[in-house]
């Protein structure tokens, strides 16, 4: 065994499986708010079919691939380190950079959405909105810097607050609602392809995030076992949540007439989950549903603040980003500088109109996804015998065929989101090579042999540190 260094200053916590599942659920679902727009644009039947079918070719492959790669390379930074192992420093930097950039914008969106819900209900002014926004960011920044244990507890409480009203609504809605939610399959005059246009983009968004938990691998005991298990439990849970809540919402909307699904949208004036709750449960259920929607966005923010900060921390430790991003808190063992920088950017963004920046979001996320799918195949070929506690149960060739579907979907998504997204995204992509050329020349990068927190040697054997990680939960 080769001696290699643990990530100095990072503290590992014992994360219970249930907490890891809550993390996965938060990062990939956190309620069904936003699905209303899919129903009105793609038709009720098509929405329910997409909820059931899309995971087979989009999120289940990602969950399985993330499980295999996470069990093989259970290192801080997650996807960034997987891609480094499979495709080298250049592409891992690109993936880490794009993913981080995307999450800087994305996480701010969740705070903005929570504020939108609050503002619609309580109608406060711009100054109050800014103060509440900054307070939200500050609270979750502290929780994240305090450590994964507190973050896990917070997410658990938040998800209880999200799911209890949704469960009540779902059961009640299915009982008192009317009509067949699968009918009609498509909106009048639409083909399968045209109806899927907007719906597919939203649905892909709703079914993303399976790779995120892996970025915390450097701070969890026994990550190579806990994370794959959590992903495999979380996958059916997320599908079931989406299916039954949307099923109920369509039935509730149909109380006002069989074609009322066409009025399901978010953003005011339409039948969203809050309005649907009002229809069957009156003000009390509507209020609880509003709380659920606000908590859902706050949970997403807390989760993505945690996971979004880790790749940049590890890239800094690998001498590819400024040194201060690699700082850890002396007592709590968390990458506080990376978390704080992300929070500051979020706090600034939520006080400006950043709609132009959102356009780069989906685009930048799709490229790392493609690289992750390619990496799993490359590593199967390059290091077939490297230890993996979880292996997707299919031969490499078949796995290649399976991951070709999500790669194709990711590429299609680049073109179906509209001109704004495409131009903004293409410009965002070019920041990757520019950033690499700048930071590589300043900080030089680290050889594979000197990488901190590496569990495998460059030849695919367990390092001494890797052996400690393997045995951490034993």
């Amino acid at each position, binding site marked *: 065994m080769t001696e290699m260094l643990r990530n100095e200053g990072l503290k590992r916590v014992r994360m219970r499986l249930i907490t890891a599942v809550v993390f996965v659920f938060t990062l990939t679902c956190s309620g069904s708010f936003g699905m209303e727009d899919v129903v009105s644009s793609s038709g009720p039947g098509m929405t329910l079919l997409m909820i059931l079918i899309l995971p087979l070719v989009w999120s289940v492959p990602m969950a399985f691939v993330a499980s295999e790669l996470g069990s093989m390379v259970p290192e801080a930074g997650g996807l960034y380190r997987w891609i480094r192992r499979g495709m080298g420093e250049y592409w891992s930097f690109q993936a880490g950079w794009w993913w981080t950039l995307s999450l800087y914008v994305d996480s701010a969106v969740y705070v903005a959405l929570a504020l939108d819900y609050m503002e619609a209900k309580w109608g406060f002014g711009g100054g109050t909105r800014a103060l509440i926004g900054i307070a939200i960011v500050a609270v979750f920044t502290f929780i994240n810097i305090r450590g994964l244990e507190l973050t896990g507890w917070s997410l658990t409480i938040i998800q209880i607050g999200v799911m209890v009203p949704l469960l009540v609504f779902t059961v009640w809605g299915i009982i008192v609602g009317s009509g067949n939610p699968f009918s009609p399959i498509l909106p009048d005059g639409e083909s399968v392809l045209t109806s899927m246009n907007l719906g597919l983009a939203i649905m892909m968004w709703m079914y993303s995030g399976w790779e995120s938990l892996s970025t915390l691998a450097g701070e969890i005991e026994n990550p190579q076992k806990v994370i794959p298990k959590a992903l495999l439990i979380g996958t059916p849970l997320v599908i079931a949540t989406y299916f039954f809540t949307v099923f109920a919402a369509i039935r509730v909307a149909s109380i006002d007439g069989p074609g009322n699904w066409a009025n399901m949208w978010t953003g005011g004036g339409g039948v969203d989950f809050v309005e649907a709750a009002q229809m069957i449960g009156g003000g009390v259920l509507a209020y609880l549903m509003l709380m659920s929607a606000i908590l859902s966005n706050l949970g997403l923010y807390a989760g993505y603040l945690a996971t979004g900060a880790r790749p940049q921390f590890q890239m800094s430790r690998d001498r590819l980003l400024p040194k201060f991003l690699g700082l850890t808190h002396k007592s709590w063992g968390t990458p506080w500088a990376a978390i704080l920088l992300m929070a500051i950017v979020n706090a600034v963004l939520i006080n400006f109109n950043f709609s132009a920046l959102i356009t780069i979001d989906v685009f930048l996320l799709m490229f790392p996804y493609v690289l992750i799918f390619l990496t799993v195949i490359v590593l199967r070929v390059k290091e077939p015998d490297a230890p993996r506690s979880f292996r997707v149960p299919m031969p490499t060739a078949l796995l290649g065929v399976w991951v070709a579907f999500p790669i194709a979907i990711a590429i299609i998504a680049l073109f179906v989101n509209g001109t704004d997204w495409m131009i903004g995204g293409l410009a965002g992509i070019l920041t990757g090579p520019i950033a690499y050329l700048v930071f*590589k020349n300043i900080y030089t990068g680290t050889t594979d042999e000197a990488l901190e927190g590496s569990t495998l040697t460059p030849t695919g054997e367990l390092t001494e540190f890797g052996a400690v990680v393997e045995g951490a939960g034993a």
Partner: protein
Amino acid sequence: MKGQKMANYAAIAGVVAGAFAIGGGLYAHSAKPIFGIPQFFGIYSQYLSGVHVLMGIGVVMVVGGLLSFKWPSIGGIIVCSAAMLGLIYAYNRGQYRWSPMLYYWWGPWLFAWIAGIFAGYAAYKNVPQSNEKLADARHAESSGA
């Protein structure tokens, strides 16, 4: 230089990106497509027409490409930054943004990205990675060694 082959590829891709932009500008000069009014972020000038911007950025890309033969990192940064600026310009066209993107900016973008990739590979080969374990480096720093 270890990465000279990659630097050469970066240079060629950068020059091709510039040639696409200049060629697009020349074509647009005769085809006269609708690019919107000649402005960029509120600055109005006849030199900010679609044709002028395409050709101007094309020239910058060619220069960046040529620099890449000797200094791939500098050349790559110039080529990619120019393409990014071009895309932001196309985005800034408002309702007319799709046409410049679809017909004129895809080529410069694609080859600029390829130039950036090769420049990145050249940098990877040319800039020696640190082999010092980070913890040792930090220890040396803190002890003033």
